[in-house]
């Protein structure tokens, strides 16, 4: 077992364990922390897969910004384990069983999938230079289009998030 494999299995165990922690812990703050840990594990996987830039971005954007926003909202609402609503046992069981059934079906269905072999030699594609090249040549249209998405989201933040006052708006 090479060092790659050891790293893979360790990160896998951390990722799955923390993911379970997200859905099982009663305290929402713990869930957030577990999710951040999961993201770190996934970033570790990115490194193993030669996606160095993505690994960094994943931490900056997901763990750094998005999850902090979650944490912020949870604290804003002062949610904790005491006020956390719990579903009935039966409903939870049904959820676990159906999720498990989905996993089983998917694994059984995709078990025989065919792939080219995984290139074990490191490659350069995950480098920031390479990604920039691809992004600004092939993917320049989606890049521009995504600004529409941001504009929508900004409007959403204003329309939904802002307190209603009639002085500023038409």
């Amino acid at each position, binding site marked *: 077992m090479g060092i790659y494999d050891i790293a893979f299995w360790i990160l896998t165990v951390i990722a799955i364990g923390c993911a379970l922690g997200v859905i099982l812990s009663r305290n929402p703050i713990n869930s957030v922390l577990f999710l951040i840990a999961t993201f770190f594990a996934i970033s570790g996987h990115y490194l193993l897969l030669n996606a160095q830039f993505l690994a960094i971005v994943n931490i900056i954007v997901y763990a750094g910004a998005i999850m902090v926003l979650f944490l912020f909202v949870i604290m804003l609402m002062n949610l904790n384990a005491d006020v956390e609503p719990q579903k009935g046992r039966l409903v939870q069981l049904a959820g676990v069983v159906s999720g498990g059934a989905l996993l089983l079906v*998917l694994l059984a*269905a*995709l*078990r*025989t*999938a*065919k*792939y080219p072999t995984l290139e074990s030699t490191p490659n350069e594609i995950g480098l920031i230079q390479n990604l920039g090249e691809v992004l600004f*040549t*092939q*993917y*320049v*249209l*989606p890049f521009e*289009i*995504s*600004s*529409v*998405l941001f*504009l*929508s*989201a900004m*409007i*959403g933040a*204003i*329309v*939904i998030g802002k307190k*209603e006052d*009639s002085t500023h*708006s*038409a």
Partner: protein
Amino acid sequence: MKAIIAATILGIVMMFAGLQMKNKSSVVTLAIVLAFLLLGVNIWDLVATPATAPVGYFNNMLRIDRYALWFSTLMTGVTVLYTLLVGKEIQKVGVHVAEYFALIFFILCGVYILSCYNNMLMLFLGIEILSIPQYILAGSDKKNLKSSEASLKYFLMGAFSTGILLMGITLLYGATGSFNIVAYSFLQSDALNPLALGGVIFVMIALGFKVSAAPMHMWTPDVYDGSPTPFTAYMATVVKASAFFAFIRLFQVSFGSISSQWTVVLSVITAATLLIGNLTAVFQQSVKRMLSYSSIAQAGFMLFAVLAVNAVAWQGIIIYAVAYSIATIGIFTVLMKLKDYTYDGFNGLAKKEPLLAFVTTIFLFSLAGIPLTGGFMAKYYVIQAVMVQNQFLWLVIFGLLMAAISVYYYFRVIIAMYFKEGNAELHAPVTQGEKVLLVITCGLVILIGIFPQLLLSWI
């Protein structure tokens, strides 16, 4: 192509208009003018693009053909009609009138992308540009708890379906190594990689969610019911139609060659959608909620076009989208005039506003698929598309049976208007201008029903 840029810029113009203009009705007027402008740009696109083989743009991110151009133009036309008919009602929803219109222009940008995307990334972005403004519009009536509830439900389920869509795209990428939808058309039915098939099913489920096909339909009644009515009208028409267009585009262009693998599953979905939509609509008391179930039922018919992998299906989906959208917007316009959205609210409308009752009747005829209205032609074309395929005769018969049931709940409204005593209360008297517009809309419905060739000969 120009239309995508134009829609974005006009959306920004509307955003800034909200900062400058204090008068709500002048904002609406501006929006109507801009919608017409956008229609002009679309027509320009249509005229300027030669009718030769489809052209790829931006490294084949987009691929523009006649269907795409016509669909964009027609949907813009429907939006123009929508702003004309419903614009006044949007004023009443909340204070951010200009923003609502800006979001509608952004949605249109998504519509254009979905009509000509050639890459899964564009599909994904298009779906999101279509959806995110909808979450906002659904929750825009902040005084109303139902509106917030609709928004949250739609958002949670929409985000979930985004995950499903992405999983599908990833699996397809895993099977082919490409995001280009034309690349998928080289998949072969025999010895198909399970990854590809899994991807197809995931994508089908995610798109089925957007078009509210059973069993992914359950958000539809609640969201349509809870959202402010003007926006429900838009969600149920243009948005749904373009989701369908995206659906059929992907499944014809990319997965046509492996259709034997997925048509069975899709036929099950179609049958379930027809059954649930039509059956559940029967029991409703609120016309608005009935219309949301009916939109599920109509989705069942539109799925026929996806099921049939041939050229007739394209024509079918376009004519269906137009006929259904126009009639639905018409009905919602009338509905918004009424104080009471239940069936009883329509009692005696024929006495009070005979013209309103008459146009409503025509719109309902169209939805029910009575001959000489657009709805009949639309149903005819999609069924014809399946018939040409020499498959799924059972589904066609089942669909006709369900169409027979649908007449029941549509006609309940007509009975209420014409045959029941009551005093249908209106918010405000209907103005002459609105009447003229409604009559024109009604004329369009009949025109499509009698001369579908006027429309289809161009496409």
